[in-house]
């Protein structure tokens, strides 16, 4: 996956006063979990690991991490099921979806389920650490591919939107997404559009909110119609 934008909010501290975010890794491949743990090094504190939905819910409840790295495909119902069960009880936990499958259905599914970002497993360790810090801070992480999917999902159709507030992207949001899809980092997007990085983040968060809340008929139909597994 290309570059994930990063802007430092380095001085922030996380729950429990730690200087680095406390992370739980949920993935059914043990090899991959240890690989990620190794790559992340000191950038985060890995407090727990889980390999399926039930143990993930248990480990997250036990440790109350700042962020959960969540695999989309999991035995026992998938990442969406983890999101549903954890967010019902611990709405403060943030999720970053991480998957080897970059099919639109999966990606849109976890983001609508509550994940605040999505990156593919080919992402480099440094970029992953950046993305984790960003999501743990409450921002959204859009990889170029996710931006592309979102643009596709909100593509102009003849059908009138049911809720114009939620079912349409503003011109500015569209511009931001297109630049991200072209591989621009947040600060490059900001420079290109003559706006601040903070404004870029606001736009991305707003897109994320629309993506999660829109009941737009097209959005769900789009995912099924494409039949992308």
């Amino acid at each position, binding site marked *: *996956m*290309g*570059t994930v934008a990063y802007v430092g909010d380095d001085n922030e501290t996380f729950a429990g006063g730690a200087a680095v975010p406390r992370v739980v890794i949920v993935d059914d491949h043990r090899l991959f979990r240890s690989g990620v743990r190794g790559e992340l090094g000191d950038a985060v504190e890995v407090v727990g690991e889980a390999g399926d939905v039930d143990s993930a819910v248990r480990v997250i409840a036990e440790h109350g991490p700042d962020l959960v790295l969540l695999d989309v495909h999991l035995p026992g119902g998938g990442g969406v099921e983890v999101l549903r069960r954890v967010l019902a009880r611990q709405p403060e936990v943030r999720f970053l979806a991480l998957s080897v*499958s970059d*099919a639109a259905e999966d990606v849109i599914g976890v983001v609508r389920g509550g994940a605040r970002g999505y990156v593919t497993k080919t992402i480099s360790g440094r970029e992953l650490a950046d993305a984790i810090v960003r999501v743990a801070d409450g921002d959204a992480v859009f990889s*170029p*591919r996710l*931006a*592309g999917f979102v*643009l*596709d999902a909100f*593509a102009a159709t003849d059908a009138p939107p049911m809720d114009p507030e939620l079912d349409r992207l503003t011109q500015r949001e569209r511009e931001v997404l*297109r630049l991200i*899809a*072209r*591989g*621009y980092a947040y600060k490059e997007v900001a420079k290109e559009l003559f706006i601040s990085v903070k404004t870029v983040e606001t736009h991305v968060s707003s897109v994320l909110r629309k993506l999660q809340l829109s009941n737009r008929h097209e959005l769900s139909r789009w995912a099924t119609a494409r*039949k*992308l*597994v």
Partner: protein
Amino acid sequence: MSDTAAAEEAPRMQRARDGRLVAGVGAGMARHLGISTTVVRLALLALGFAGIGIAVYFALVFFVPAEAAADPRERAESARRQGRDLAQLLAYLAVAGVVGMLFLVFGGLFDPLLWLIVFGAIGGAILWQQANPAQRDEWVSATSLRSRTGVLRAGAGILLIVIGVFGFLAFQQQLHEARAGLTFAVATLAGISLVAAPWIVGLVRERDRERRERIRNQERAELAAHIHDSVLHTLTLIQRRAEDPREVQRLARVQERALRGWLYQRPADAETTVKAALERVAAEVEEVHGVPIDVVCVGDGDMDDAIHAELRAAREAMVNASKYAGPETVSVYGEVEPEQVLVFVRDRGPGFDLDAVPQDRMGVRGSIVGRMERHGGSARIRTSPGEGTEVQLTMPRIKGAE
């Protein structure tokens, strides 16, 4: 059947499915002997008058296997041909003649006995047809039992036989003598059915289970073969090239893409849609140059000549990015709009001073800018030292392409 094949060795006789009239015996025998179908049918008909022909025909129906079923499309095709087959029309006429002859022998249309025999014979033929070796499979399988035509056909056959048998008995005034025997027979049959039914149901279930198992095993074998040919092969290569990280990465990317395509993607034709074509171009460049290229494409549409040219320009841009921009990922973004197709190729390399490029350098000016302008599009190159390079290609879509 061709003459050469017939000369070498007559093909095993099979009852024909295509171009058959009744059960395919005539057509099958004609193929087997390598002579005209009409001749065979006429011969059978002639023998039929002597009585022996009918017996031979039915014997062949039961003992000669039918051809394997052709696929439905082919069969529909042959069914349409059947309608125009003159030889077959003649054969039908001949059968009608035989039936007419029977009427004459039994003394006219109004002899009920004749009708009862005909009913019984047709009913029996229908049931036997369903139970013959080639069709028995279909018949017992759950799908054909549930299919309405199958049930309907069996029901019609049984009804015809019952009418025939009872009618025959009634007509001969023997029905009431036969009643005691009939009651006994029915009671016995019911008893046997009660005993045998669970066993038969068990057999059918077992057979279905075995079939499913066989299908599953086939799928597993196919999957294993695919994994062996692709993934295991690549893993072996990776182990042997372990000292060359660039090559290892290239192999892994190529294999990943192949596997992903096999697992997730519909077989999109790279020649007809923009998205598939763009992804294929990127994959090809990546394979040659070993620099990862990420493609994001929004929207999709049909290809046309101008977009072909745009993709060739995009390929050139990707090659340049791969050659000069170092090992960092190249980002490719395509956007298919109703009026135009946009392609962005972006790298994070050192960038260059566009004005410093000599006029005669072909790469950028000829292959990219020139090619786009010749086809009515435009190319814009944004670069400066230290900022990477982005090539933006815009091609209007041909009117009516959407």
